């Protein structure tokens, strides 16, 4: 009986310790589903992500569909991905260096003009924000389904992308925090 009691007691102490250890460490959390591949919307994504990480939030970015244009290793129009169609599609979509503005893109001139304005006004550019996100250890995840459609492998994505995940894992990661769809 004494032995049984000891086991129960130890379990109980373990539980209390766990609670005590977990409580103060529980971080605030921001998770963003990065759907858009637009220059301005991605600027919003990375502004929120870096701002939140800077005030100690855990930040999870889940890249899907057009959002992949921000994380492909090839930054211009390049034939990437498995298969002819995927190659053509990726070529047409382009990458980080030719993200369009969601309004008034004017054939890709506007994002360049806007980057110039950001520099002149001392506002962080999209690439500076991306670098800051890496430094602040924002978590980058790639959508498994989008990768299958586009025929892209993990090696074809920039290094901060740490894992290819699906909806179930994303829900688990974002649980208990704020979630945005951009």
């Amino acid at each position, binding site marked *: 009986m004494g032995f049984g009691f000891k086991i129960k007691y130890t379990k109980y102490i373990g539980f209390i310790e766990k609670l005590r250890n977990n409580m103060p460490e529980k971080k605030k959390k921001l998770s963003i589903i990065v759907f858009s591949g637009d220059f301005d919307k991605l600027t919003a994504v990375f502004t929120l992500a870096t701002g939140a*990480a800077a*005030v100690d939030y855990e930040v999870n970015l889940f890249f899907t569909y057009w959002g992949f244009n921000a994380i492909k290793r090839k930054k211009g129009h390049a034939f990437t991905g498995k298969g002819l169609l995927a190659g053509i599609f990726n070529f047409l979509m382009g990458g980080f260096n030719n993200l369009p503005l969601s309004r008034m893109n004017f054939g890709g001139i506007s994002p360049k003009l806007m980057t110039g304005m950001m520099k002149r006004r001392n506002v*962080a550019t999209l690439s500076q924000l991306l670098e800051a996100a890496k430094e602040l250890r924002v978590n980058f995840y790639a959508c498994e389904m989008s990768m299958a459609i586009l025929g892209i492998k993990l090696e074809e994505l920039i290094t901060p992308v740490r894992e290819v995940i699906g909806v179930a894992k994303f829900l688990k990661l974002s649980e208990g925090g704020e979630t945005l769809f951009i």
Partner: protein
Amino acid sequence: MSDYVLDITLEHCPMTFVKTKLQLSRMKAGETLDILLTEGEVLENLPESAAEQGYQVLSVSHVNGNIHKVVIRK
């Protein structure tokens, strides 16, 4: 005199907070940081946010014009 000085008077959101966070992450516990910043959003929110994250805000003082100094201990 603090161990480090960070001038974010020319920065805007979110880099004001990002640069502060990165500077603090490079410092050892107990070291102090002088942050020079301008009036407005950053002055209103940065000291409070630093305190919330467990840093010690030692002082907030006016330097000149619209520039203020916040001293933080890690």
